[in-house]
């Protein structure tokens, strides 16, 4: 499992080296292109900001009111039965529905439990292997006016479920 963490450490530097060398080999003026791309990223983040403000305020209110704790207590018997971190339950459901709302909950968990706690690590891994199923499906299928989606939802839910289970397993192996 130390290999896994070594992989984490080497991934970004290796991508840098690879892309820079590849860029040179194709005679790209890499710095100019980098600046251009960075501008795009800047715009993307600024577009996210209003959504993030809206959703973080909503989650902040839910947290301060004690509603999130009450919900956690309600589901805790079931979650503990399968060894699932109770505090991660709201996030797991929200993840399927809305990307920005789940980000709000994720940041709330980081704030309250820390990103380096077991919970923080688990939700990080889980967020990276799951997708906003309902939103994505509606965008893509609506674009071609398909209304009968057959087994798409079942397949996607299964994949997400497998991802959540794999995250829990790997985090238990590495950090517990």
């Amino acid at each position, binding site marked *: 499992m130390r290999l*896994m963490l070594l*992989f*984490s450490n080497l*991934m*970004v530097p290796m991508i840098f080296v690879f*892309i*820079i060398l*590849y*860029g040179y080999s194709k005679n*790209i003026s890499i710095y100019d*292109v980098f*600046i251009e*791309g*960075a*501008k*795009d*990223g800047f715009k*993307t*983040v*600024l577009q996210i900001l209003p959504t993030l403000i809206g*959703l*973080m305020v*909503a989650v902040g*209110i*839910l947290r*301060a*009111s*004690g*509603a999130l704790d009450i919900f956690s207590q309600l589901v805790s018997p079931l979650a503990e039965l399968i060894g699932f971190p109770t505090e991660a339950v709201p996030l797991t459901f929200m993840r399927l*529905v*809305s990307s920005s*709302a789940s*980000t709000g909950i*994720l940041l709330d968990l980081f*704030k309250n439990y*820390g*990103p*380096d706690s077991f919970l923080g*690590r688990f939700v990080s891994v889980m967020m*990276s*292997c*799951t*997708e906003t199923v309902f*939103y994505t499906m509606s965008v*893509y299928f609506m674009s071609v*006016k*398909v209304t*009968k989606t057959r*087994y798409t939802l*079942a397949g*996607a839910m299964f*994949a997400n*479920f497998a*991802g959540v*289970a*794999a*995250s829990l397993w*790997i*985090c238990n192996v*590495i950090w517990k």
Partner: protein
Amino acid sequence: MLNYLWGVMILIGIAVAAFTGKMPDITNAAVDSSKEAVTTCITMLGIISMWTGLMKIAEEAGLIKVLSKKMMPFLRFLFPDIPKKHKSLEYIATNVIANIFGLGWAATPAGIKAMEEMQKLNLKKDTASKSMCMFMVFNMSSLQLICVNLIAYRSQYNSQSPSEIIGPGFFATFISTLAGIAITKVIERWYVK
């Protein structure tokens, strides 16, 4: 969707606060959270811009095109119903590669084009074809190699090692994608005539 979700979240929060006696905390929470959203975005501005800059080099150098071509044999396995050299395969490849590199803005337009091309091959226009189902499940099983946003969020909340989740995240993503493909292939075989 969010029009309901957002309002309901706040209303529930305030209603619960009325019962738990935490009403005074609500205002503080609202103010603090909005400030936090801004500080988080400032951290993200740096990390995301760095990443998109790097990926722009890859795109400009033609790396995405090269990788798309390399993917073709695998796509032929996933989508046996799509004729060889059909346009939709190109769009699917671009969508998948862009997703792997976390280029969301490049992924979605290519994905929608892929759906449109697959719709041309589809016999029943209101019903998803086999290829469409596979494409959607594959796409939604999460393909991203490195979740840069997460690294940004973790570093914003003072993680000692924001990137330590890359390896485990890669593993979990691999499992979810594999599971998505496997279950779809099984359903295609046993359930769909």
